């Protein structure tokens, strides 16, 4: 399963990436599975996504939690808590 992942705001700067396609090996996967895969890269990926700082997520433009189930072709955005208004 392939998902398009976007890194927004401070997270984009910390990870040094604006976005990428990620392949989840098993047939099914959740946002939590995606985060685990990204954390395993080590370095800034583990630093930012290990839970020390809050990371929020949207799947196909809707806010989602770590248990959200992903489907092939989904757009997943990871970002810090929002600060608009």
């Amino acid at each position, binding site marked *: 399963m392939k998902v398009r992942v*976007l890194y*927004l*705001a*401070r997270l984009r700067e910390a990870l040094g990436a604006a976005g990428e396609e990620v392949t989840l090996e098993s047939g099914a996967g959740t946002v939590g599975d995606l985060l685990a895969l990204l954390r395993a890269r080590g370095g800034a990926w583990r630093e930012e996504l290990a839970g020390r700082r*809050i990371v929020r997520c*949207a799947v196909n*433009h*809707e*806010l989602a939690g770590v248990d959200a189930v992903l489907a092939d072709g989904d*757009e997943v*955005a990871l*970002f*810090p*808590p*929002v*600060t*608009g*208004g």
Partner: protein
Amino acid sequence: MPVRVQSADFDVSAEIAALRAGRTGIGAVASFVGVMRDMSDGEPVRAMTLEHYPGMTEKALEAIVGEAKRRWPLAEALIVHRVGRLLPADQIVLVVTLAGHREAALAACAFIMDYLKTRAPFWKKEETPAGERWVEARASDDQAAGRWAQPQQ
């Protein structure tokens, strides 16, 4: 279109007039304008850049307006939110609510701002004398949004 995301400034009077045009059943017009300050967390701020998530931003703002209309008898509501680089005293966001009476208009206006602060995909980056820094979300914003929580049905 009850929501707009734009870099251009907005004219509060013109927006309210346009929203009210032709409506004779409205008894209450409530509004809020968010403005950029020259100080933040003890540091002077020279400028601020607002990033957003194209594709999700309008959708998130529309959902907030939809929720406000579900909770209160609003005739209409409007959100205009700017993005890009702003300077102190610049307008950032406008919320306008129209209703038959003031309770709904005022409460919905506050609700929309509290939900926007915690759910709308915008992020602020400030330019200070010490350098650039991203604004951190506040616990007080989460608390403000939390006061609108409804009992689980």
